[in-house]
């Protein structure tokens, strides 16, 4: 009898570990699953560089490509900026910017000073496209595959380590 009582905690914690193990598996992809393998949302906005040029989803060409959400007020964007530049300089992939809740003048000056890794930036002053993408904040990076579907979403700075882990396999 005493023996049985003594195994109760063991059984209980055994179940707890198994349960947590499975809930861990469930939770992993939840943040991203909403967007993965979906089409990039439709939009109609101007470019950062030209306030008269209206663009839409069909203007994101030469896939696969990255869409990088950035802003001048976002310091983490400055952290990842040198790496974006290197991606451009080595012609690894096309990068489109999504300038998020920012001012046009400030953003253009920043690009001029620090370098512009983007083919062009979508100017999303009100955050409407960002809302459709479910953006939390800047920076975030999306990879659109050759088939036009979103393959990866990354929240936070894009670093070489993150690139190796999450992005590079889609380019081969």
């Amino acid at each position: 009898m005493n023996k049985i009582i003594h195994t109760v905690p063991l059984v209980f914690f055994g179940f707890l570990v198994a349960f947590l193990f499975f809930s861990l598996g469930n939770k992993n992809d939840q943040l991203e699953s909403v967007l993965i393998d979906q089409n990039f949302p439709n939009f109609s906005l101007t470019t950062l560089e030209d306030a008269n040029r209206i663009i839409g989803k069909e203007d994101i060409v030469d896939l696969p490509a990255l869409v990088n959400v950035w802003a001048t007020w976002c310091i983490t964007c400055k952290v990842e900026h040198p790496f974006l530049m290197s991606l451009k300089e080595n012609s690894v992939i096309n990068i489109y910017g999504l300038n998020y809740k920012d001012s046009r003048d400030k953003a253009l000056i920043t690009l001029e000073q620090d370098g512009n890794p983007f083919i062009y930036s979508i100017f999303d002053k009100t955050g409407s496209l960002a809302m459709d993408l479910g953006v939390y904040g800047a920076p975030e990076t999306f990879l659109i595959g050759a088939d036009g579907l979103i393959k990866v979403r990354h929240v936070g700075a894009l670093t070489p380590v993150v690139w190796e882990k999450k992005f590079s396999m889609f380019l081969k």
Partner: protein
Amino acid sequence: MIPEIGHILLIAALVVSFVGSVLPFFDLASKKSYSQSYIKPFSIFLFLLIFFSFLTLIYSFLVDDFSLTYVAENSNTLLPNYFKFAATWGAHEGSLVLWTLCISLWLVAFIYSKKEVDNAFTSVTFGIMSQVIFAFLIFTLLTSNPFERLLPFSPMQGSDLNPSLQDFAFTIHPPLLYMGYSGLALPFSLAVAAMMTNNIESSWARTSRPWSLLSCSFLTLGIGLGSWWAYYELGWGGWWFWDPVENAAFVPWLISIALFHSLIVTEKRGLFKNWSLLLSILSFAASLLGTFLVRSGVLTSVHAFALDPERGLFILGIFAFFIIGSLVIYSLKNYKLSPTSIYDLTSKEFGFLLNNLLLVVLAVSIMFGTLFPILYEAYTQGKQVSVGPPYFNFLIMPFAIGLGLLQGVGLYLGWGQTKNFSFVSRVAIEASVLFIFINIVLYLLFGKFNSSAVIASLLFAWIVAGNFLDIIIRGFQANKLRVFISARLGMIFAHTGIAFLVLGIGVVSSFSSEKELILGPGDSYDLEGYSFKFEEINFQKGPNYSAQVAKINITDQEDTLTLISEKRNYTASNQTTTEAGIIAEVFKDYYVALGENVSNDNWSFRLQIKPFVRWIWFGALLVAIGGFISSLGHLRKGS
């Protein structure tokens, strides 16, 4: 270069802790009884390696070395030096190194508190502690390395420390909390070592007791500071939110309280051995589970740690290894109850048993409430539910009442059987006097009665009468006041601290008043007879933020007090924080949080009066002081 040295030191610590993890078990298996002379130098060496590694990380923060990913993501050139220093443990990676540093500090403290280390028990304890350190070091190095470089693309500027963490209370809250969390590894190691070396006589309990009490005291301080921080920094005026992360600290706190009370019985009477062993395992399990919940992303909470499933898996592995492993040993070793284990329903033993049952059932229910959303989601294929404060508030009431009633008289129960019940009437009379006095004061202050406040004041009176007043009175009568107090000093502090805590909670949840409204400069509002007048608002610049600073004058019949409430915008991350304006008095806090700018100079405000809220933290402080006095006293006597 410096970060690489730190990295190498951490790897060296990993190697040392690995050797420390296996050596004692070879000795144990070979049954050789040669000198364990390596234990002392090993412990101190391990501690120093981790300590200097941690120093290099602090250094990297102080010199703005943004080539380190961790520094770039959590600091900024504009951050004041003090916060650069504290940013070292502001996020996951650095806080893990701190965690490991804390365990190695516990190890050193334990080993150096022993005159005699040449025995299997101490050596196996050392081995288990080394295993815990090894597990956390390998976790840090493989999944959360703070020394990872952002080369060759190092940024010129970093992202800044989360603004709400740029605060004094927050900077010391994590180290204290980690001391508490990681300290529970020591009673755990002692329990496992006791089982493995078949040494569960009272010497094990005597050794374990002060350490479990000491980690519990650190937990008390850490949780108390966290509560105080949330109160003035989050701008809601709440001091406890039943947030999963708070629960993750509260549950080990409850279990560690149960643990050292149970250890008293094991030490003094040789009873509850199995139960004390189990609680030693459970308290460390709760501590690890808390770590898992916070850092795996299984639960979402306001306490933002980077969510990474790989890390969650790793911590779960650590949890499974230590907890399942120790429970296997526990189920194999089955210690017979000693024949003298007969005790009466009126005995001190039974009092401790009730205390333990209440604490553990409460802890398990809170854990259940915290995990329930995940359970529910799993069973309903993704429907979400949240378990909020009403569940927890409803739950804790009967337990608090039961524990409080027990606490008032537990001291007077006799071992085996209580023969003399004269204490009941004595304490009851003292408590009644105190109870009436407090309620008169409360009535004079608030002009009405409230049932929760009456219950809380009853518990307060009962606990203070039994644990303080009666000791004083009897000590005075016996003319041995000094002896009466000094023998129980830690307990008097801790138990009256609980009484203050309970009264504070009861009063602040009954008599708080709150008003949300929009005011323009010159407008005023009367809350509970106090006039809050919005004088002016100004723009100010801080080192790394800009702020709107509102000046409010509060007037009662005679005095006028001035209060400053701020809303800060931290430039680097574009995040806004509320710095509530608070005037703290013994009996009440005036609390004003500045909201949004509605139009022109009109701002939304939250005005609050929080009576007795200070008593909560004052109580927690007393509890911690009592715990320190008592555990350090035992450590000095023991060893």
